[in-house]
């Protein structure tokens, strides 16, 4: 081969090196001078300093000579040990401690830091009160790196030293702090939110999580300062407040439940500086009792509604009382429509026959009626329900979340921008946050307040009072279904760790509320609707059939009811834009199964996309590009044929991931059902990627 006419220019090499890991970049350093220059830039722009790693001393030395290349630094410290911190001062701040004649660090200087550390640890000073920094005795040097990203994970021991480094990194665009509980952690560190916002004017992403004392703010923003605030959007899109509050550029903020527990009426006024905030991520490790006692969801919601009009994404996991809507407490004199639900001791039944045999209503019955009435109210937009986050597009709820039923229903009912919802559904999760009510509101009689323990004493009076106080309720099956039937803007929906039983999907359900909640205007009983179509039960339509693109969902059916499967496949075929369908992992019991993709179980419903007899013409099979965790419970001999069926039915299908069933063969766990992947038909089909999950 002839030599290249021209070598690749530096900017192209830079692009290529973006795709390489450390080991390969090392090899590139030795290829040629040009490659060395570019590879070095890439290698040292993104550096992780980990005190526990073998090569860290070598790395620190190499980095010291190349500080100007640093853009992203991740600092992992078991402890903020003094020596490592001094190295960091050199690297990040170009600050070299005074040396004696031999070039060693001046020991007095060193001891002064250690002494401070000891004072902090043994409690002679309280770090919670102040965050005074150790004054650097030398001005900052010229080789200081232009850091954009800094992340720290380690304990909060030696917080003084940490502070003296942290607040000097004023060029940061992204800051990530994770305080670990190990080593000499004091959990006494207080983050000063105002100081953070002041020190890092270019910051767009901020994440402060872990174990620390609290989120503080140096009371520079008081409630009275911002009470007259009106927010105006300037030309470049950043929001500026009149009245002297300079808006910060921060777009994404990650924090723990500690922040939700701030006390006082000024608790969340520092958010008045965050009018550009688009996303919040909340991580909580609190117990549900703590969350119930200390969270302030109403105050938090009201503050954010007022100060952060651009908020469009919330990601929350753990016990965090976070309400999305303001459900105003009903005044005691305005609850006649609720008290009317308490049934008479001797109700008449439908035919007018006076009831001697009818039992007095049980508390369950009242609870059900109250719930149904609340549903109706929420779905019709009555009762002054206001969203705290009117721009919400994305809501992600992780493990042990505390989204309430009322908030979910309201999300579905109100005209929303909501396009993305992920719920990690934990139906059996007890939580004391359901006992909370808005203490700041008027019309609350303190005598009536029940302790969380009394949740189990469901007297009629208590049920009524709970309803009046708008106490939240955990999400149940019907709430999810109701949401799906009403939310018309959804593009991405995921409901993980939950398998929907067939009865929840259909109409004619016992708990079904037919009045005004369906698109069908015939408000008659279920039997009449069934008579209209000969097939009996049918699946309730979802409001998002025209918009949904991604669906992650699980089903639980009986193997003996192919009709149920057929109806659901038909339902799945209704979506006009579905590109990605992921099934939740199937239940493990023999008589309960996931949705079966097989012709005898109606899988061609994907093609018809609608009721039988409708033209259909393609259904969601036309748009599907990716199917994951497709259950493979069907007969072994059918598997290759089914893959080919999917290839023919779904012309755009590129990825097909198959769930497999492990079986014990000869006493060993084996997956014997993979041979079909080698069949000619399967290998040659149009699906690019067929694999076992």
């Amino acid at each position, binding site marked *: 081969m002839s030599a290249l006419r021209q070598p690749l220019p530096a900017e192209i090499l830079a692009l290529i090196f973006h*795709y390489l890991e450390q080991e390969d970049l090392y090899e590139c350093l030795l290829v040629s001078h040009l490659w060395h220059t570019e590879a070095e830039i890439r290698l040292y722009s993104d550096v992780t300093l980990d005190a526990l790693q073998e090569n860290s001393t070598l790395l620190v030395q190499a980095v010291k*000579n190349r500080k100007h290349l640093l853009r992203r630094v991740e600092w992992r410290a078991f402890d903020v040990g003094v020596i490592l911190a001094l190295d960091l001062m050199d690297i990040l701040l170009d600050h070299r401690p005074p040396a004696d004649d031999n070039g060693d660090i001046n020991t007095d200087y060193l001891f002064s830091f250690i002494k401070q550390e000891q004072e902090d640890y043994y409690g002679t000073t309280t770090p919670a009160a102040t965050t005074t920094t150790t004054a650097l005795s030398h001005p900052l040097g010229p080789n200081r790196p232009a850091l954009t990203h800094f992340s720290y994970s380690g304990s909060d021991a030696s917080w003084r030293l940490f502070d003296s480094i942290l607040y000097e990194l004023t060029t940061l665009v992204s800051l990530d702090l994770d305080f670990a509980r190990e080593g000499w952690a004091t959990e006494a560190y207080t983050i000063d939110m105002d100081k953070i916002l002041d020190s890092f004017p270019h910051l767009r*992403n901020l994440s402060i999580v872990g174990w620390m004392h609290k989120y503080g703010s140096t009371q520079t923003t008081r409630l009275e300062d911002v009470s007259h605030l009106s927010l105006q959007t300037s030309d470049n899109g950043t929001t500026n407040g009149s009245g002297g509050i300079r808006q910060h550029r921060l777009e994404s903020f990650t924090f723990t439940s500690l922040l939700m527990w701030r006390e006082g009426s000024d608790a969340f006024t520092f958010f008045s500086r965050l009018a550009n905030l688009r996303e919040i991520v909340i991580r909580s490790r609190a117990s549900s009792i703590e969350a119930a006692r200390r969270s302030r969801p109403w105050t938090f919601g009201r503050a954010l509604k007022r100060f952060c009009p651009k908020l469009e994404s919330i990601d929350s996991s753990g016990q965090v009382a976070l309400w999305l809507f303001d459900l105003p407490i009903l005044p005691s004199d305005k609850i006649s429509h609720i008290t009317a639900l308490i049934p008479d001791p001797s109700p008449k039944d439908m035919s007018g026959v006076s009831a001697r045999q009818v039992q007095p209503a049980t508390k369950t019955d009242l609870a059900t009626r109250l719930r149904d009435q609340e549903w109706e109210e929420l779905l019709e937009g009555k009762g002054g329900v206001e969203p705290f986050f009117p721009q919400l597009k994305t809501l992600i709820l992780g493990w042990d979340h505390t989204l309430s039923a009322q908030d979910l229903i309201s999300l579905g009912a109100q005209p929303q921008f909501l396009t993305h919802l992920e719920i990690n559904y934990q139906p059996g999760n007890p939580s004391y946050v359901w006992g909370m009510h808005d203490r700041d509101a008027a019309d609350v009689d303190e005598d009536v307040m029940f302790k969380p323990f009394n949740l189990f004493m469901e007297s009629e009076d208590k049920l009524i009072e709970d309803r009046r106080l708008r106490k939240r309720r955990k999400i149940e099956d019907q709430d999810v279904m109701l949401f799906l039937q009403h939310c018309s803007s959804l593009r991405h929906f995921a409901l993980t760790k939950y398998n929907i039983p067939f009865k929840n999907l259909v109409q004619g359900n016992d708990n079904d509320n037919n009045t005004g909640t369906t698109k069908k205007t015939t408000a008659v009983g279920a039997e009449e609707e069934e008579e209209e179509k000969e097939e009996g039960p049918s699946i309730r339509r979802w409001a998002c059939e025209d918009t949904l693109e991604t669906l992650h969902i699980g089903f639980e059916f009986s193997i003996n009811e192919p009709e149920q499967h057929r109806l659901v496949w038909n339902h799945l075929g209704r979506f006009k834009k579905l590109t990605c369908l992921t099934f939740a992992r199937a239940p493990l019991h023999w008589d309960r199964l996931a949705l079966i993709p097989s012709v005898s179980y109606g899988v061609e419903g994907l093609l018809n996309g609608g009721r039988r007899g409708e033209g259909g013409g393609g259904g969601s099979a036309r748009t599907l590009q990716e199917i994951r965790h497709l259950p493979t419970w069907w007969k072994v001999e059918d598997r290759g044929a089914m893959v080919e069926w999917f290839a023919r039915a779904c012309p755009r299908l590129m990825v097909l991931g198959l769930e497999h069933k492990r079986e014990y063969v000869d006493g060993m766990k084996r997956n014997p059902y993979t041979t079909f992947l080698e069949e000619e038909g399967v290998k040659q089909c149009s699906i690019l990627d067929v694999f076992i999950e």
Partner: protein
Amino acid sequence: MTVILVSSDNQDFKVDKEVAERSILIKNMLEDVGESDSPIPLPNVTAAVLTKVIEYCEHHRNDPVQVPEETDDPRKRSNDIEEWDMKFMQVDQEMLFEIILAANYLDIKPLLDVGCKTVANIIKGKTPEEIRKAFNIVNDFTPEEEAQIKKENEWAEDR
């Protein structure tokens, strides 16, 4: 509507406007020039390379236009190349580099990305000598320089 592209060795290529506009450079040129029929000269691209580039743009003519994303993620994946693209990129090293340079000049980001990923995949796992051999690069280091570099960057070596 078709446009005429002229390679550096004076060969004419007639392509649909929609296909040609996968190149942002050409797209901007067309917008500036307006409704003129005059051919567009591409002095930096030979006919052989232009043929390949046009083939790529034809195949991807219906792809959605990529929005420049400001991702914060420094690490990018190179293992997600489509099968057609992979076969398309199975050319000799010289042509591979020429395609990348052309994609850069013509501002066709998806093609540039695929090219760079392909090169990255070739580099992965190779020693410096193997890399030089693969790309015909001359070693311009003295042995002392090599030793120095190895010493300074020891921490990054894969053990």
